[in-house]
């Protein structure tokens, strides 16, 4: 018995000794992102598993946070604490610019040029990934930040059509309300990005994309109290007055509102293209479709969409740049992205992946993207956060029935120190 014990001990020791060098050599890649649910979460798990299998010397250590936490304090805290991730998710635009100006992001031009990696991405994806002519983000997908999704069965029941104009949209909401439905489910708890983004799109449609850009960049002579901005938020105020939203919009978060749409407690739901991924997992039987914000009588491009490119960055101080690049090559390989598109129905920034989609809503997303004459940046990813949040506050106030002129004047006061 004692001999068996000794043999077992020696065997374990040998195994440990054999494994020792491997464990010591393994690189742990810290990967921070905001994918916590939906079909993309499942696909990402699978993609990481395949990467670790094919690269036994690299282990991915995920740090996944809710998107709102991630955008506001999560990622920033990692950098401030001196524990930056090696690879991290980012929304293209101002946040990439911020990371570059803070010295957090690594330049990727050289890496992307190697083996023509760069050519595998759609050329439209680079605008949001580039700062000062240099690339800092590997594009991953295209998010349409706001669409109006609707329950197609209820539309069919009342013979309703997708509205072309804002007036038709209002008539549609009234018809649904008269029929006893809550026309729109919205959840705006927290910083208020869901309604804030929609409000941003409305502002751009009313005052024009260039004026919208100037407004949020706090250019000289601009003001949130401009009549056009007040008019745009007035569109939402009118909907609130007419009772088109669920109660407690500002106290329900985005995921709760999404679930209430899935559970058919409301007929429409304004949110981004990522709803497709959520629905594939949480409401696979739901018959739904979507449309872009209908045309408004304004100075902006009425075919515009609000959206951005999202992607992944490598931290400037990462000691594992090569391993991080290997992981991103794997993640954005055509094979993995085809798997992702098939699994989630989301738009990939990688060429040769569109025909992998099986979800009928994928076509809709592609159509909207292609039909969009202009792409408007969402306030919180396109512009400084403090300005964006002041604007979101104004939209949230309007959702609570506060007069748009007053709400926007208070937004002006909140960011006066930045002008």
């Amino acid at each position: 018995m004692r001999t068996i014990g000794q043999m077992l001990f020696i065997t374990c020791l040998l195994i440990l000794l054999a494994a020792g060098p491997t464990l010591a050599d393994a690189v742990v890649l810290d990967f921070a992102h905001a994918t916590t649910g939906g079909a993309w979460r499942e696909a990402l798990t699978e993609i990481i598993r395949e990467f670790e299998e094919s690269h036994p010397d690299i282990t991915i250590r995920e740090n996944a946070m809710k998107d709102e936490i991630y955008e506001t304090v999560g990622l920033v805290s990692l950098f401030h604490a001196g524990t930056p991730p090696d690879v991290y998710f980012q929304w293209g635009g101002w946040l990439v610019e911020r990371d570059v100006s803070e010295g957090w992001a690594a330049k990727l031009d050289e890496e992307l040029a190697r083996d023509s990696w760069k050519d595998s991405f759609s050329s439209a994806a680079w605008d949001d990934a580039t700062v000062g002519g240099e690339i800092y983000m590997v594009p991953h997908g295209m998010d349409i930040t706001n669409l109006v999704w609707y329950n197609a069965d209820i539309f069919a029941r009342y013979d309703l059509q997708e509205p072309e104009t804002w007036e038709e949209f209002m008539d549609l909401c009234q018809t649904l309300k008269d029929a006893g439905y809550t026309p729109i489910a919205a959840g705006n708890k927290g910083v208020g990005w869901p309604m804030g983004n929609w409000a941003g799109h409305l502002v751009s449609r009313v005052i024009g994309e260039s004026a919208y850009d100037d407004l949020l960049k706090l250019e000289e002579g601009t003001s949130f109290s401009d009549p056009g901005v007040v008019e745009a938020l007035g569109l939402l105020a009118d909907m609130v007055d007419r009772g088109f939203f669920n109660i407690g919009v500002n106290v329900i978060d985005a995921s709760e509102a999404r679930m209430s749409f899935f559970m058919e407690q409301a007929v429409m739901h304004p949110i981004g293209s990522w709803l497709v991924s959520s629905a594939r997992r949480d409401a696979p039987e739901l018959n739904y479709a979507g449309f872009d914000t209908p045309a408004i009588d304004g100075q902006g491009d009425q075919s515009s969409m609000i959206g951005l490119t999202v992607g992944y960055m490598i931290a400037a101080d990462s000691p594992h740049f090569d391993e991080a690049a290997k992981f991103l090559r794997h993640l954005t390989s055509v094979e993995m992205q085809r798997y992702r598109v098939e699994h989630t129905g989301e738009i990939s920034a990688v060429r040769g992946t569109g025909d992998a989609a099986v979800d009928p809503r994928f076509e809709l997303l592609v159509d909207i993207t292609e039909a969009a004459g202009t792409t408007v940046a969402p306030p919180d990813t396109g512009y400084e956060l403090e300005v964006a949040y002041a604007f979101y506050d104004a939209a949230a106030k309007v959702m609570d029935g506060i007069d748009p002129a007053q709400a926007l004047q208070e937004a002006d006061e909140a960011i006066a120190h930045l002008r």
Partner: protein
Amino acid sequence: MQRGIDRYTPYLFVLPALVVFVLFVLYPALDNFRYSFFDWRGFGPMEWVGWANYERALGSDGIFHLAFRNNILYFLGTIGSEVAFGLMIAFLLSKPLPLFSGLRVLFFTPMVLSMTIIGILWSYIYHPQIGLINSLLAAVGQQDAARAWLGDPQTIIAAVVITSGWTYGGFFMLLFYAGIKRIPAALAEAARLDGASEWKIFTLVTFPLLRPILVIALLLCWTGSFKAFNLFWVMTGEGGGPYHSGEIVATWIMKQAFQFSRMGYGAALAVIMTIVVVVSSTAYLLYSNRQRLEY
């Protein structure tokens, strides 16, 4: 020689704690004070701005003023929901009746729960559509009184105050219960023999003798109201509620320092909050000590 060692021995015992205090409290606090004179994003170069951060905080930052007012409201509310509630329960449960010891444990139980769990739990209780409160109102035919408790600027602070009372009421109950048990039973007995009612015994005998504990309870309540963070952060949607109606100083500091990367300004807000709490607490303790009651 021996006498010399004896003289320094107490200081040697204090030294480890003093080192920890200096390293982890005093030094960071002084460093924070230094940061408050800079425009600094927490990363990269620091630009000296003098008193500009303080001028903004005390002058034009309406959200900071609102947050400060919310802290005061929260403090006033918790005097009722935590201290008064705890005192009342302690007095009632101090009677030697069956089940009362079990009830004391029950009232204390929320204290052992994570604040995040409590926040989430009460968020559902206040939920406008599926919440317990609105469901109860509907069940008794008061649908019109239903509202989004955490989404309404009129009710958001009160909603957190109630949750806070539910959580900390048991702690204050324990504090007062220990105080009540310390009061000699003969005093109440004498009053009872003189024909005093239970209410009179409480107001004229028990309550005045609990004064030292009340002083500490109010101080804990005051400092606790400025330390509050996680309950507000969870219940009001990453702090703030709709358009800052539920913002408190701590959440606003967090946002300035980390969301907007205005570390210098956040440091100035922290300095202001620290001065307010330390000065007011010290003044309060000095005033209370002058009116000490012994028995």
